């Protein structure tokens, strides 16, 4: 119920469109029922007039029949256009709403969702909310309003017919959908769940195909897909069976309404308290009235599925971001002097990941962080970028605690090339310009030159317009990494953070890459996380991290002289 209210609240901005759709569907419905009833009355009255030779004014009813026929046709068209416009506008709004809700959650809060599943949540679930507005809310409101008006109309002629039809309308529009809903709730929820699992299994099977084949596990993954597929269709079959029951049920109720109208009217006609044409009109009216409840059973059948989707979307939207933005953010500082003192951090369910980190980043200073994998180097980056909140110690920017700044302000000062760079499904140019959309062609090429990737891009037939990402050109790991470096350089920020910039790049290329990066970083703060010893001699300070602590610090030469552990790290490369 809370979810339904929340859905209604999201629909509120589109109320004008939705009520217009409701009004039009009422008009259409009345025109249709009226047309059948009036036609029946008309031919019955004409037949009696013909037999008895009594005069009859046929102009008005004949004109009425034509008007209702045209009104119904045009009304239906307008109603369809307006209700779909309403629904699609609402969906577009929902997409943006959910994007804005999950945007602050990235990346810290989204890591636990598999990307195939996340896709399913956001896209498929929002699409299935379509059902709520177009096939649920609108038909329910239409059915409620029109049924009441129908019963009032019938009551004017005969209360028994009105009551009988009312009861059948309630059965077809109330009990039947409710029963179908209750029976369909479990399979409906399972359909949503299973199709999400199926999607994950398919994506996993495709992305991990090399491993599956190499380890002889492809058959098992296939079995899993087959099994999920089977389960999905079995539950869908249950829902289809329920759809059959409800369609048949509404038809049966509408037939019974006609039958009851006849049964009630026959003695009245005989007694003369009801005319023959009125009996015909009532019978046809009763039967046609069920058009109002026709869309209800399928609507309720979808309710379970829709609510499951809504719940999943809301639970995602309600996650709290890892970092809370300040109420009154501080201004962008002049110099990006970053100071960390005793900074500590731990993931919620595990031991401390970072302990007592001291770090100084200032313009013109070059710092390298080295250490074992899992030592917390990437977490340090997440703290600097304000993707995660530090638990203890102090982190200041230009003398103010970094919490006082807006996350975007902090990130404006920083350019990052991460360890696992992401390329968007767009051209190389668009991928680079994400860093700075207003950058000129020359600036973009200059950045690519520094990263040593320009020549390779220029060699592609489409140059910078070559599509990248999924479905684009396949780039090597080294190329992707250098594109990420070019992107960071293009951003032209005072702080440059590079995570493993030379991995996948051969030694001589790595050396010249770092030379160019160092000269670009002149006057900027530079933090390099690395496993390679290339370029360490040029650093002002090297931090050796282990298990979340800085265990050694100093210049490369000092550390080589002083620390056996540090020497051991590079022994292999000499």
């Amino acid at each position, binding site marked *: 119920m809370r979810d339904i209210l929340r859905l209604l609240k999201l629909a509120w901005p589109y109320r004008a469109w939705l009520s217009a759709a409701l009004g039009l569907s009422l008009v259409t419905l009345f025109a249709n029922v009226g047309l059948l009833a009036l036609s029946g009355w008309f031919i019955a009255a004409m037949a009696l007039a013909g037999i008895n030779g009594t005069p009859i004014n046929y102009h008005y009813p004949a004109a009425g029949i034509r008007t209702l026929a045209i009104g119904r046709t045009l009304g239906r068209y307008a109603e369809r256009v307006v209700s779909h416009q309403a629904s699609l506008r609402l969906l577009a709004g929902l997409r943006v709403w959910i994007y804005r809700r999950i945007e602050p959650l990235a990346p810290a809060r989204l890591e636990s969702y598999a990307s195939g599943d996340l896709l399913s949540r*956001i896209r498929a679930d929002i699409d299935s909310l379509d059902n709520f507005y177009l096939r649920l809310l609108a038909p329910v409101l239409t059915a409620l309003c029109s049924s009441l008006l129908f019963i009032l109309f019938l009551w004017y002629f005969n209360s028994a017919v009105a009551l009988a039809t009312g009861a059948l309308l309630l059965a077809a529009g109330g009990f039947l959908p409710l029963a179908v809903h209750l029976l369909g709730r479990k399979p409906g929820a399972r359909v949503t769940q299973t199709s999400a699992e199926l999607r994950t299994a398919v994506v996993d099977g495709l992305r991990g195909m090399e491993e599956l084949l190499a380890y002889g596990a492809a058959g098992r993954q296939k079995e899993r897909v087959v099994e999920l597929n089977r389960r999905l269709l079995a539950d869908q079959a249950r829902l289809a069976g329920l759809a059959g029951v409800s369609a048949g049920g509404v038809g049966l109720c509408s037939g019974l309404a006609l039958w009851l109208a006849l049964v009630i009217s026959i003695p009245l006609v005989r007694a003369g308290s009801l005319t023959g044409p009125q009996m015909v009109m009532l019978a046809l009216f009763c039967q046609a009235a069920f058009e109002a409840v026709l869309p209800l059973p399928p609507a309720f059948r979808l309710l379970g599925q829709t609510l499951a989707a809504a719940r999943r979307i809301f639970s995602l939207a309600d996650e709290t971001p890892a970092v809370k933005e300040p109420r009154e953010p501080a201004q962008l500082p002049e110099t990006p002097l970053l100071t960390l003192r005793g900074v500590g951090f731990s993931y919620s369910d595990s*031991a401390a990941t970072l302990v007592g980190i001291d770090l100084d980043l200032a313009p013109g200073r070059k710092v390298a962080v080295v250490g074992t994998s899992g030592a917390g180097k990437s977490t340090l980056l997440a703290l600097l970028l304000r993707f995660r909140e530090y638990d203890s110690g102090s982190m200041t920017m230009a003398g103010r605690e970094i919490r006082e700044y807006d996350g975007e302000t902090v990130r404006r000062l920083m350019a990052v090339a991460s360890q696992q760079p992401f390329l968007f499904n767009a051209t190389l140019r668009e991928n680079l310009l994400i860093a700075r959309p207003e950058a000129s062609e020359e600036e973009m090429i200059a950045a690519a030159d520094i990263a040593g990737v320009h020549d390779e891009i220029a060699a592609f037939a489409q140059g910078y317009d070559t599509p990248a990402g999924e479905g684009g050109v396949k780039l090597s790991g080294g190329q992707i990494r250098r594109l990420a470096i070019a992107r960071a350089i293009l951003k032209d920020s005072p702080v440059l953070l590079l995570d493993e910039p030379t991995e996948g790049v*051969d030694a001589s290329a790595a050396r010249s890459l770092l030379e160019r990066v160092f000269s670009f970083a002149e006057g900027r703060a530079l933090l390099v996380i690395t496993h390679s*010893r290339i370029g360490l001699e040029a650093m002002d300070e090297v931090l050796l991290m282990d298990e979340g602590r800085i265990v050694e610090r100093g210049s490369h030469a000092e550390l080589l002289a002083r620390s056996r552990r540090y020497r051991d790290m590079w022994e292999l490369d000499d």
Partner: protein
Amino acid sequence: MSEDITEKPAPEQRLNLLKNRVKPTLLLAVGLGIASGFVLIAQALIVAGLVHRVMIDGSGYREVLPQLLWLPPLMLARAGLSWISERVAFAASATIRQEVRNDLFQRLLDAGPLQLKGDRAGEVATVIVDGVEALEGYYSRYLPHLAVMAVVPLSILAAVVPADWISAGIMLFSAPFIPFFTILIGRGAERLNQRQWQTLARLGGYFLDRVNGLATLRMFNASRREAEMIARISDDYRRATMSVLYMAFLSALVLEFFATVSVALMAVVIGFRLLKGGMAFQDGFTVLLLAPEFYLPLRLMGNYYHARMEAIGAAERIFNLLDTPLAPRPAAPHPLPPVSPLRICLEDVCFRYSPDSPPVIDGVTLNLAQGERVALVGPSGAGKSTLAALLLGFALPEQGRVLINGVDLAQCDLDQWRRHVAWVPQSPHLFHGTIGDNIRLGRQDATDTDVLQAASRARCGEFIARLPQGLDTVIGEQGAGLSGGQARRIALARVFLKDSPLIITDEPTAGLDAHSETLVREALGELAQGRTVLSIAHRLATLEDTDRVVVMSGGRIIEQGHYDDLKGAGGLFARMAAAGEGA
């Protein structure tokens, strides 16, 4: 009816061929639909007769009782028929969707990982899940209805002709307009629909892409900007959808116009004939009751036409995937010769990804002897990883042969061969599931003890032990929640669990720090005892204890020999070595 007028596009012909798999079920659904139509006609005749007797003849209950009693069972029968036909039609479509979806997945597995170049996985998954779903209406509604539509209106017409030939004339005259306009408008919509599917796929891809890249967008403060892009693309989607719907609704408008106006016209004409005493009321009323039912199947056709267009839109992508080329496989693969001792020969092997791209492997001849440890080095793009893929049978050489103890690998059962190869890729894929399941990938039946032992030999036992749920810890896709080094070592544990005579590693220590690298190298050294090892190497330091170094460049082997000899040979390797570390 549509068959006569529209030229069927290729996807629909293939959709139609699939129909044959469920022909009996579909025929049953059609039969039930037609039976329901006959019940309806009987019902109308009875109601008209009953009303006539009450209104014109002044009869009461006693006279019309048989008719009154006949009606409820007939109505019940209609409801039952509608229920069963719905189930049957769904069963037909479910069978087809199930088979198509399974076939698609199998086809992609058969085609191999190199066919999914550029990581099209998300897009392909959308076709397998949503695309196949879009076929539902075609088999469960459109096709059965097509047959019902051909029979039921004609039967109604047959019932109307004796009652009132003028109304029958109106029906006969107006009916053809309905499919005619449907098809006329539908053809335009069909073209639009292809575009809509593309827009839809683009939107889906765009959305997933931006959500996957949210972290990157935030790094560059571009994520809020993207919200506007998503709004714009969603708006494009609405426009694309509405442009299709306007057409679909317009065709519905034409259908309803003809149907409704014809019924209204019949009512007026019948009324005047009755006034003049030209016909019996019973006949007039029968026609009025049946007239809407005559048009109903024709009108519904408009709705199902939409289902058809949707299915055709999806079919094109489905069949494209189903047509993914497969390397020719022998009908009866040779049994793999005994692999101990193992001799592998590559004979003048050439390979390219597609016929119009340059060769990636260009005439490579290489022998691997039992127990030999060979390192492949060379600049990126030299073809090292592709060579490994050929040895694993992920792709077959375009030219030349890969011989396993003298037998061409292309003629062997590849699964059987891969059982003897352990492989550590450059960026291992971790599956959504537990750590234990991920390590058990190659040996489902391994005990926890085996798994933990493999884990500790891969030097990840320690961190797994520190996790509260140990092996049962669930990891996200792509190893979310683990560091790069941890993910790498979990992938290594798989190898330890699998006892294979050949080990292929693709830069197994890239991204590991020197400390972990030592551990992993020790472990690999332990594993390598008595086995053949082909390692794609990144660091020169890892080459010293190999028997042979093979240097590749531009898809060819340019030099090979022992580490020390090559270092002094003055070739590419010597230059790489001089540059310091790494290759």
